[in-house]
């Protein structure tokens, strides 16, 4: 095999050194009956030419190669990815490096993580950021766990407008611990604030919100923050990082922990992963923060450098008492986000956010003007995504339109009950052109007429 340099002569040399005559002699500790000479029925070995042929044919069966125009969002967004991000993250010294436990030969990784942490702090308006987490959902789950470590109470309140997949992950993470997860109900994307007021009490560790929420709406976060604070609960937000280009961060309203999905920041759709969970909190909670953290320091000669720090919180030191079981971060996707934020800069992050806002509003207006039975499900302000109520089943619309090459959005009935059957969640990023939006509008118009 071409990945193994040892030749048969090398192996002979090794056998000689070890004083054995065959490989089997090295396996004397292994019970014979466990050593299998049965075939493992897997394909291969294939040559590179054969692999390329096979993988190209598999790739061709997927939407991007079928040139399907997509307005799907619901947690994964088709944003612009500057070409030079790929150049940087595919650089071997980043791609094939290990966790930076030996700082003297990992300054490249460590400095980029420090820069990443700084950028996340600036964007979210919070004091400290960790080196990243698996994805938006697990980052939110870890935030709920962290709040529970800080408050030591027994409940978490989670808004019904949070991405339902995230809610499931939070529940999965908390199922073994004695913490009850209660949902603040919503209808058509509007949270029931009265029920929220009833649910919140002195046993709540934290209230969890999404901003803009799963339906794309921007709700009255200041009011929710005040109510949560009145009972001493922490405020956790899962945010869209691009929206923070124009929207005030929940930090300004008192958020204690801000997490989110970093995929919009220069990371391709990738069928859902690898993505990036970002995580920032107030400085007073830094020692309860999960995951890895990089800090600046100096060497013996006083030169500036970076190391992994606060490691006494981590699993390799504290074992079952660690702040989390995580022993990796998403270093490479965090690097992509770092390069993305640096590339866009102060002007770019605002410009990309404004384009999303303008294009989604243009699309919403155009779609609603098809006929009077198409309307937004609520009148809350929205950023780049919005939910429409249609006169017919959203699933049927999606299936029909996809045949002609357009995915008009995601059906909300996939996430909620039957009353959402006619609701379609549409995402419009800066990448969608006016022409593409026109195709969406005319496609939907035609499809609805057909389905009537």
């Amino acid at each position, binding site marked *: 095999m071409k990945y*193994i340099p040892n030749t048969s002569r090398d192996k002979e040399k*090794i056998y000689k050194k*070890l004083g054995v005559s065959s*490989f089997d002699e090295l396996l004397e*500790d*292994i019970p014979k009956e466990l050593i*299998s*000479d049965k075939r493992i*029925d*897997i394909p*291969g070995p294939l040559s590179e030419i054969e*692999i390329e042929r096979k993988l190209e044919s598999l790739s061709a069966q*997927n*939407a*991007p190669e079928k040139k399907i125009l997509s307005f799907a969002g619901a*947690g*994964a967004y088709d944003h612009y990815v500057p070409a030079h991000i790929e150049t*940087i993250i595919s*650089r*071997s010294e980043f*791609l094939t490096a*290990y966790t930076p436990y030996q700082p003297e030969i990992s*300054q490249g990784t460590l400095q980029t993580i420090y820069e990443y*942490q700084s950028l996340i702090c600036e964007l979210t308006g919070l*004091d400290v950021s960790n080196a*990243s987490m698996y*994805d938006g*959902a*697990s980052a939110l789950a870890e935030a709920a766990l962290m709040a529970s470590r800080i408050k030591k109470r027994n409940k978490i309140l989670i808004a019904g407008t949070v991405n339902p997949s995230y809610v499931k992950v939070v529940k999965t993470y908390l199922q*073994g*611990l004695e913490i009850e997860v209660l949902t603040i109900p919503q209808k058509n994307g509007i949270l029931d604030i009265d029920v929220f007021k009833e649910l919140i009490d002195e046993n709540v560790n934290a209230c969890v919100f999404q901003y803009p929420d799963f339906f794309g709406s921007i709700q009255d976060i200041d009011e929710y923050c005040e109510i949560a604070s009145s009972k001493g609960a922490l405020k956790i937000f899962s945010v869209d990082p691009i929206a923070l280009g*124009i929207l*005030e961060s929940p930090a300004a309203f008192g958020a204690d922990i801000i997490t989110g999905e970093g995929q919009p920041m220069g990371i*391709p759709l990738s*069928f*859902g*992963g*690898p993505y990036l969970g970002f995580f920032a909190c107030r400085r007073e909670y830094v020692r309860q923060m999960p995951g890895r953290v990089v800090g*600046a*320091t100096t060497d*013996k000669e006083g030169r500036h450098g970076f190391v992994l720090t*606060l490691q006494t919180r981590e699993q*390799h030191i504290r*074992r079952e008492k660690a702040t989390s079981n995580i022993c*990796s971060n*998403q270093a*490479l*996707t965090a*690097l992509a986000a770092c390069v993305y934020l640096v*590339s866009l800069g102060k002007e*770019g*992050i*605002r410009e990309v956010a*404004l384009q999303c806002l303008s*294009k989604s509003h*243009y699309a919403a207006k155009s779609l609603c003007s098809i006929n009077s039975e198409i309307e937004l499900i609520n009148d809350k*302000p*929205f950023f780049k995504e919005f939910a429409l109520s249609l006169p017919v089943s959203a699933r049927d619309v999606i299936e029909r339109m996809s045949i002609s090459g357009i995915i008009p959005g*995601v059906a909300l009935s996939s996430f909620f009950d039957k009353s959402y059957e006619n609701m379609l969640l549409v995402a419009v990023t800066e990448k969608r052109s*006016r022409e593409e939006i026109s195709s969406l509008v005319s496609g939907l118009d035609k499809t609805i007429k057909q389905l009537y």
Partner: protein
Amino acid sequence: MSEKNSSKLIFEYSREGKKGYSLPQLDVPEVDIEKVVPERLLRKKPAQLPEVSEPEIIRHFINLSRKNYSVDTGFYPLGSCTMKYNPKINEKMSSLKGFKELHPFALEENCQGALQIMYELSDMLSKISGMDAVTLQPSAGAQGELCGTMIIRAYFKDKGEKRDEIIIPDSAHGTNPASAALAGMKVRTVKSSEKGELDIDELEKAITPATAALMITNPNTLGFFESGIQKISSMLHKNGSLLYMDGANLNAMLGFLKPGDMGFDIVHFNLHKSFSTPHGCGGPGAGPVGVKKELSDFLPVPRIVRKGNHFHFDWEQKKSIGRLHSFYGNFLVMVRAYVYLLSVGEKGLREISENAILNANYLKESLKNYYELPYDRKCMHEFVLSGSKQKKKGVKTLDIAKRLMDYGFHPPTIYFPLIVNEALMIEPTETESIETLDEFIEAMIKIAEESETEPEIVKNAPHSLSISRLDEVKAAKQLDLNYYARKQ
């Protein structure tokens, strides 16, 4: 080629008006933001992100990359981390447009290629491990462990049994106890025997009616195969408990040993270790989990199922522990592992383990006269030395690790497993040539000699890098985690 040693941060290149991006002219009417968003929700002060041009960005980050050690530039004998070569065809295939630009909510008929890869990769991992079902959802080995312990918990809950203890050997990875605790289980630690294996007498004492499972690494972190594994398995199963295998060391057994045959009920895989996907400076990895049939109902949803020639998502698993990921896991990592398995095939699997084991034993035999070898026996794909001989001269294992950098090598895993004093845990992997191993041996011998003759040179290493030893205490005491806070 001279290396620019500037430690400038990207923020220091920022000048108003520089741009590192380009966007098309807005082709729809611009929305008056104040009309659609209440004023109090608008950002008052723009995020002060740096303003830098594309060439400066490239030069900054490429220069930073040159301050990193990596598998493509050198040898990483890191025990339990399996830093093997990452084949380039894996990268090329994972960047195909149909994978990279695929939205996770594409309709099933528009993601058949992706689903087929996931289905077939799960199938290959099942066959390699002797398990009945595999989920690809966990994003890392540690998340795989969490998934596994949650499955254990859910299994007993479903059976109506109250079992809340997990037994873990003292040689285990720190993630094992941390994951078990996160799943709400109590951890009981069991000592290792003088032979460097799990002490079966101690295990017997630890097993109680509350024992849900034993969580072990096989071969263990000392590099030895647990020769009593069948006995261990029957002891646990007789008690109604389950057996979990941390698959960190799977590289030692590919193709000829199966965890399923040893009695394991659950195993996690580290695609970034045994299956050659890049570590990426610490992530993303992927940590699939395989289980025996009676546990398959508890796997996370969605599962990928096949009906005829069609692949689809199955969300209907009532006993499932739920979800661990926003979507389906780290798909592009899965593509790389899939390509790797296709390129090695069954025959290749055996060659991998055989050469990993040969290389490890070769290093061990070559170094045992210079460093203390606490357990002198044949090893699997890794082994543990102790720097205790050198410590007597005032040279710590940490010093040896730093000195190795001067000789051009990444240090081994150090101070782990915790049960070996001044531990150096070495794993060469199958992708290193005997010439590289000889160079490494030579460097290790020189350091052993230096520790005798001129210990100061080792104690003050590294000497050849742009930076010397960093003050970690200062980093923790005077926390500086954010450039913007530093500026204030």
